[in-house]
């Protein structure tokens, strides 16, 4: 289970990095989104993988760490807002610069 999750996070991050390094804004936004998915998953897993345990401390029972769940919720909200912002910014750059290249020119000097 841990190995599978680790591979998933690694693949997501690798794809995210590759897409972020592309020259056009749309793949770049997708790349940023994939990276934020990867990091959210990573944060969540940092509370260790446990199945069927409540995030509350009870006598004698095992429990899941609730803090990473709270952290990941905050991180999701922030990355959601940032993605919305960068989409709007990419659209505005497309309108003002006349193309969707990140440098604003098709063939940068």
């Amino acid at each position, binding site marked *: 289970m841990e190995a599978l999750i680790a591979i998933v996070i690694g693949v997501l991050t690798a794809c995210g990095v590759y897409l972020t390094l592309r020259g056009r804004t749309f793949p770049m936004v997708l790349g*940023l989104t994939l990276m934020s998915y990867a*990091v959210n998953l990573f944060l969540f897993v940092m509370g260790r993988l446990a199945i069927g345990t409540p995030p509350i401390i009870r006598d004698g029972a095992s429990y899941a760490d609730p803090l990473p769940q709270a*952290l990941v919720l905050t991180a999701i909200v922030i990355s959601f807002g940032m993605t919305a912002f960068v989409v709007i910014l*990419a659209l505005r750059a497309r309108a003002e610069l006349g193309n969707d290249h990140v440098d604003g020119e098709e063939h940068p000097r």
Partner: protein
Amino acid sequence: MNHLLIAPLLLPLLAGTMLLLLRSYDTPVRRGLSILATLALVGISLALLLHVAEHGAQVYQLGNWAAPFGIVLVADRLAVIMVLITSVLAACVVFYAVRGSDHAGRYFHILFQMQLFGLNGAFLTGDLFNLFVFFEVLLIASYGLLLHGGGRKRTRAGLHYVVLNLVGSTLFLFAVGALYGVLGTLNMADLAQRLSSVPAEDLGVVRAAGLLLFGVFALKAALAPLHLWLPGAYGHTSAPVAAMFAIMTKVGAYSILRVHSLMFGPDAGPLAGLLDAWLLPLALLTVIAGTLGVLASRRLAEQAAYLVIVSAGTLLTAFGLGGTEAFAAGLYYLVHSTFAAAALFLLAGILGEARGTTGDRLVPGPALPRGQLLGGLFLLIALAASGMPPLSGFIGKWLILQASLGAPDMLWVLGVLLVTSLLGIMALARSGSRLFFKIDEKATASAPARLGDLTAPAALATAGIAMVVYAAPVYEFARVTAAQLVQSGGYLAAVLHSTAGGIAQ
């Protein structure tokens, strides 16, 4: 608990919210509210500084939960001095902005207050995850401010700035997650304590997380080779925004200093001095790269942006040297360089408007009305920024050079700082002569610079002069602050041993 501690966060947050509700009101109302809130913030920061100087580090437990279980705000000397610089800078900038440049969009003052909220939060928080959250608050406000007014070059630079910082935020979260996964805490004082007893098999993860954190802060502080975003972003935005951003690289430097001294300080066991191998060489490289940019700049705002990189490098050189003397010198230089850079950005904005179509390009332009006044102010600010006697830049650099004497890398530090200072003086002298002495007869000036516009840069330059006149008490404050950073025990005790509600059990 002293509620003064949370006032620097609540005041800009409330002011920003009120401005949002009042956004359809007349401009004078909104400007008045923004000025009032910023001035009140200066008063609060000053009161907080005096309180902390007298009673030592203060801890505010949010929701009355004791650390490390609850989230804390910590006002030690370093935090309060950063908050005070921010509020003084903000007051000068807001007085410049209300003279017209806030008119390019309706949301300037709202974003400005939110930026202050994020900055003060980042300085005061004692929790690593909250540092991330406040970074995001100040960043999203800065995205809006950077793009304020629009324009092709600004949009392009803004896109690069936003994407780089989003990647930085992702890396920050990876580092925070890894630290939590291994150490089980995010309170910075608690992290510092647990770091000294990390089991050997986890050392690699912690080391990777620490260096990742350093990388993120280096991106914010514009440490080479992560400095390339800065000239475009700062050089193309509006003058008041660029002036306010003079404090933004200092947030990165502050975070490096905090992490360096608290978590990877001499008591950190096997991880002590994790950043030592990286910080000094990269800082010197930053100084060199920034100076080359200063020499090659074609516009005054661009030159000011490269000077920000040089000052970030000089600052981190001091932090990289380590020890009480070097930290104190760095703190003195930090205060000076923030004000000097902001003053230069504001002056570049004024000159750009006064010179009509020539703008702030470093080419001969029209003869300026009030040229002597503008030129005199430029001379004053350039002297301070380049580190010439008798202004504050000279004292700052002198202190750093003095702190480097006897260090193993003394020759490198002396050589790089002295040669780049000379090159910086040459570049600024050339800019001054092109801007003020050489006249292009055909070019026409637009309206003469208004005297009121000059008050803000003049006030910032005066702050630099005041730092010379009161150099002894300022340096003494910096020295005590530095001594507390080197002996982090006081910080740990204040955070971890304060009981809930401040009631001794």
